[in-house]
């Protein structure tokens, strides 16, 4: 069984981002970039399936600038066998390559590689759209198991447990299928130095976005990007009695 794992290069989750002075987007110069955390969970899950003897090959793919090779190397250090980068200089966070275009690009890669399963993050922490996996499954006519916290592979089908607003829902999906990962699916490992060294020698194919015939012209134009209104906090109370007094008499949120 072959597993395709799409990953995205995003601003590291620990970075406090800043809006550009001209309100055109987010300042990305000299900011630490990483693999989108949900995608790291996806790689880990695919690698575990390979280690358990259920998958034969794990292919990490990404769409982005030349530097996204770094994130693909990370995926290969965790255990992906090879990688494909669809290179583009268009922005990948806002006002550039949008989820629908990403889904179309991934469909072209699925047609090329014929995987049995695609595991990907449920959302990227930059644009926060939460669309690409669902869109890819629609374009392929496959089943979708979104926000997964547990996967059980059977013969020709799979069971996925999903984190939904009311609790945990379990679905059975026909394969091939798309899985999008939620936080509790697994805890990704830290790549060890020998694995990082080994990853440098693994195959990394670079394709031009144009070669896949997908149009990256955005459907959504960015009118402006602004800082959210800042919240005036920092007030302190000395003890529980003062807190109760403030909530009742100043904020009037308790009676």
């Amino acid at each position, binding site marked *: 069984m072959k597993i395709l794992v799409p990953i995205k290069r995003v601003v590291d989750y620990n970075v406090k981002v800043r809006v550009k002075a001209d309100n055109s987007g987010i300042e990305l110069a000299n900011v630490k970039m990483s693999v989108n955390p949900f995608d790291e969970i996806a790689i880990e899950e695919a690698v575990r399936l390979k280690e358990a003897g259920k998958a034969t090959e794990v292919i990490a793919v990404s769409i982005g600038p030349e530097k996204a090779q770094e994130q693909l190397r990370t995926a290969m250090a965790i255990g992906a066998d090879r990688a494909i980068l669809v290179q583009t200089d268009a922005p990948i966070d806002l006002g550039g390559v949008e989820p*629908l275009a990403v889904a179309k690009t991934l469909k072209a890669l699925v047609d090329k590689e014929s995987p049995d399963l695609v595991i990907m993050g449920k959302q990227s922490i930059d644009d926060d759209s939460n669309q690409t996996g*669902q869109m890819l499954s629609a374009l392929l006519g496959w089943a979708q198991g979104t926000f997964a916290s547990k996967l059980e592979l059977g013969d020709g089908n799979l069971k996925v447990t999903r984190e939904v607003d009311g609790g945990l829902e379990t679905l059975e999906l026909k394969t091939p299928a798309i899985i999008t990962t939620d*936080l509790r699916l697994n805890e990704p490992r830290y790549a060890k130095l020998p694995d990082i060294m080994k990853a440098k020698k693994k195959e990394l194919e670079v394709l031009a976005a144009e070669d896949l015939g997908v149009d990256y012209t955005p459907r959504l134009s960015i009118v402006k990007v602004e800082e959210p209104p800042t919240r005036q906090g920092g007030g302190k109370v000395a003890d529980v009695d003062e807190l109760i007094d403030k909530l009742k008499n100043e904020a009037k949120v308790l009676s």
Partner: protein
Amino acid sequence: MSVLVIAEHDNSEIKAATLNTITAARQIDGDVHLLVAGANMDGAMQAASQIHGIAKVLKADAPELGHHLAENIALVIVELATNYTHILAPASTFGKNVMPRAAALLDTQQISDISAVVDADTFERPVYAGNAVATVKSSDAIKLITVRGTTFDPVKAEGGQPEVEDVAPKGDAGLSSFVGLEASESDRPELTSADIVVSGGRGVGSAENFAIIEKLADKIGAAVGASRAAVDAGYVPNDYQVGQTGKVVAPDLYIAIGISGAIQHLAGMKDSKVIVAINKDEDAPIFQIADYGLVADLFEAVPELESKL
């Protein structure tokens, strides 16, 4: 032209976020229709046919729609789409699951989690965990949108008299089937629509200790939430999580207990009207956004607060 709202429901009742989504739809156009897709849904239809502010309820009743599988509901939405300029759903796990599938089938770039309607083509949405707000303008002919419920007031659940129209089902896509739901049972208010939310974090220390959070919540009629750390540690179920990738809440009062205040958590609660933080670490970032910060041991302060209220 009209706007279609996809109702979120469990066949017996309409979920509150649907009412907020209708308000967003009405800011785009006054002629709003509501699609209720499900099975054995007398309760949901009863509720839907009284909602204020909608002209029509479209009823799609078929066994394969009963569990709201994305593969099947998307087909119904796509069939109806050409009658509408905009199709909206709540940005809940239901809407997030179904809408992008329909959007791709319609070759439309969805606009996720809008927090404001600027005009019929232009919307605001939080990005980067709410650290920026993007205003985006769509050039698609049919716009598919998910709506952040906390930024739109709900329409009235009663007093409306929409006409009801049956929609022919589109059949079972045959891709997925429902196995089971492990529901979190609770008599407390729903997290995303509660007036007061009491949340616990890693500082609470264990699943057993979480009882003091729940006791305080029950005393003041609050919903219970949690930070990712508390959910990951197994103190509470996943659907308690408030934050960038969990639920977004904006109650009148949010009490954060033993929560340090990572930006991913703040993304889910910083629009609350009044924020209280109780934490023994006076440098915890949560205090920077709290209206009333109490630097104290939560195991002393929370029971004291509970007993004095």
